[in-house]
């Protein structure tokens, strides 16, 4: 277990959200990805788990056997909860709820992404929170929203993508819908929720009023295909184009190494001429089959074969550099190991080294909101289970050592998760 006398880490007082405290009741990916954005910016995010309700991402560790403290070693959890503090507090106990409300009284925001009915059962509704802190901002992130005939449904991020219509417009042409590899509904809702929380903060600054923000993950995803919602009403089709584009010569092409690809996109006549010249066929720009945008759309398959003959003699990096130098949009399709080696991200210092007592040391993506005068970094590794109990209970809530020991004895707090929950 972590040291009970752990000092509160410092060095975030220059960051944009310094002084903002967030009680984070969210788990898995959607909520934590949102509060991570705010934690990166310096907000003091306190994540709440308990022995019987702990973050499922801790269980997705893929380590062989079950090494000691494996629940502190899952990278999926550790990436999404960095820069946060973590405590255990069983909200289903009266004492746990009472302490949570005491924390709410000191907080600016509360985030939750429970199933729509759970926060009511815990008696931690907006009105309950507001009684503890009149100007509190509550951000709820249920998949379907808290009202409406389907609000009792449950969904993970891939379901959200399917509900939203995005899966129906994704796919190889003519081959039916396709899923994103990631649970895309989650980080999308997280980014919207984080921004909406900041909008609510602006409103509080101007008026003194808090509010209850609701991000229905399904609805948040639909915005990203809004042009299709309008296009459908215009009577226009919404089929998937795969890698292609309505007006550009565009695709991914295999390179000299099998399953290594370069993405190429050329729109204007000038870009197409540059593409043709770069691949050693300047005559294509004058060929009747490819001379204008419309002809190129009709003969795209033939073009693909010619472009592919060229890319197969090169690496993805060589092809991309040659085409970009000629004024054509082209990039390597980066497999994850290549992504971590990528010259551009390396030059920008995107990867930061992080160390954690149980998990060790590795490289993680840094904060994506890059501020020129208040640059953010990874200040803290993700909290080990219950790591900051002592700091929160003693230093923030003023509990005595005896009271803290009693919480452990009554299982309001915990030092290890109940492992049966996610097996």
């Amino acid at each position, binding site marked *: 277990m972590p040291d009970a006398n752990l000092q509160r880490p410092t060095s975030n007082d220059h960051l944009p959200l310094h002084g903002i405290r967030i009680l984070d009741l969210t788990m898995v990916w959607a909520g934590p990805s949102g509060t991570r*954005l705010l934690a990166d910016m310096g907000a003091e995010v306190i994540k709440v788990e308990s022995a019987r309700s702990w973050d*499922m991402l801790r*269980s997705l560790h*893929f380590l062989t056997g079950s090494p000691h403290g494996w629940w502190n070693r899952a*990278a*999926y959890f550790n990436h999404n909860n960095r820069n946060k503090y973590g405590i255990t507090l069983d909200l289903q106990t009266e004492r746990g709820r009472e302490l949570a409300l005491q924390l709410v009284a000191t907080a600016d925001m509360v985030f939750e992404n429970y199933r729509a009915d759970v926060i009511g059962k815990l008696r931690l509704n907006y009105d309950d929170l507001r009684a503890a802190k009149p100007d509190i901002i509550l951000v709820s992130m249920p998949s379907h929203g808290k009202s409406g*005939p*389907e609000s009792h*449904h449950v*969904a993970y991020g891939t*379901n959200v993508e*399917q509900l*939203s*219509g*995005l*899966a*129906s*417009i*994704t796919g190889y042409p003519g081959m039916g*819908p*396709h*899923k994103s590899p*990631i*649970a895309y509904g989650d*980080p999308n809702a997280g*980014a919207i*929720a984080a*921004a*909406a929380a900041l909008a*609510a*903060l*602006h*409103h509080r600054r*101007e008026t003194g009023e808090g*509010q209850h*923000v609701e*991000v*229905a993950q399904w*609805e948040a*995803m639909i*915005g990203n295909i809004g042009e299709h*919602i*309008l296009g*459908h*009403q*215009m009577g*226009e089709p*919404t089929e998937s184009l795969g890698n292609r*584009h309505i*007006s550009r010569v565009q695709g991914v092409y295999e390179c000299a190494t099998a399953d290594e690809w370069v*993405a190429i*996109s050329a729109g204007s006549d000038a870009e197409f001429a540059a593409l043709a010249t770069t691949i050693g066929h300047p005559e294509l720009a004058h060929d009747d089959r490819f001379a204008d945008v419309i002809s190129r759309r009709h003969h795209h398959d033939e073009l693909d074969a010619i472009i592919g003959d060229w890319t197969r003699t090169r690496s993805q990096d060589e092809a991309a550099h040659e085409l970009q130098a000629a004024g054509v949009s082209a990039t390597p399709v980066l497999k*994850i190991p290549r*992504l971590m080696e990528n*010259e*551009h991200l390396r*030059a920008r210092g995107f990867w930061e080294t992080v160390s954690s007592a149980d998990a060790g040391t*590795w490289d993680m*993506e840094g904060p994506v909101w890059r501020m*020129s005068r208040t640059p953010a970094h990874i200040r803290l590794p993700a909290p080990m289970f219950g790591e900051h109990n002592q700091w929160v209970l003693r230093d923030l809530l003023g509990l005595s050592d005896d009271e803290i020991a009693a919480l452990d004895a009554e299982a309001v707090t915990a030092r290890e998760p109940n492992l049966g929950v996610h097996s």
Partner: protein
Amino acid sequence: MTPPLAGVRILDLTSGVSGPWCTKLLADYGADVIKIERPGVGDESRGHGRFPGGVPHREKSALFLWLNTSKRSITLDVATPTGRAIALRLAAQCDAVVTDYRPSEAQRLRLAHDDFAAVNPRIITTSVTAFGQSGPYADWLPTNLTSYATGGQHYLTGDADREPLQNGGYQALYQAGTWAFGATLAAIWNAREAGIGQQAEVAGQEVMAAILEIYLPDYAYRKSEALTTRRGNFASATVGIYPAIDGYIGIHTMPKNWPQLVQAMDAEWMATDERFIDNRARLRNDDELMAQMFIFAAGVTRKEAYERGGRFRAPISPVNTVGDLLESEHLNARNFFIDIEHPAAGTMRYPVPGARMPSTPPELRPAPLLGQHNAEIYTNLLDLMSRDLATLSAAGVI
């Protein structure tokens, strides 16, 4: 009740998808967004469609109409010295400028953060691009495809025996826009609280690399390539898309949802079957489990599967089409679509912004006609006379 961003003013120097999506969100939540468009041409999305009946019309493009609600449009050629000077005078009255210039473009136009900061020390310059303002790709030509490709998600999307697949629409550009929206608000907050003006930079590649779910973290930590390949429509038997009687359904089940899933499938025998007795057994027998999922899906309609999922609390969803959404009983009960009347494109149903803030409701207005607000902005904000406008117009500046 005022919208949450009432009193925030934004100068919008973007075009296409990512920048306009960022400023649409700001505008829908109440910021006064002044969109600068090229005289006579306007935002490139005006040319992209889709269009009613397929007939191009710069005031009727679905992409433009969607991405520019609630903004005010002025025409201004910022590539001219006069146009640049006017843009800077407007920036002096704004909390933030949002640009999508690559560094070489910002330098050429002399519209980089330092130029805005010279007239407004507390200004935020949000820069939303594919590759950011530094590094060897900074001036590379961007598209949605190439942001998707360099962010790592493209390689993972699609079937193992086919080429990597881009997902639908402009997701890499939308994500960059959403993240730029949040970054802008964080920076404006800090400018108002601490008086710090600065550049807030969001690069699409980095956004996409930061949302690679388990795939990037697992590789970064374990250096195992086990989770770095394309897996088609199935992460595993219990996370995938299956064909149903009248379309497709999606299932996404974690270990704790397994009891509910077998109930929803009316296949409780699976709960006691040795092959599926716990999560390890299910992963070992993934093919056999997948066969059961195909059988279940083939025997239900999307609606039946969804209802069973709801009744038993199992994560099962229909793969909705765009048309399904507009007819959704649930979304309509929540008033998710509102009618917006546009003077050229007519009345259509628009989704409301994804975060509901009922005590500070947004007030959506139609996307502007090209230069619709020239008169009010140039005369009210800059004190130009109408004869000055005639001069600027004749010179091609507005």
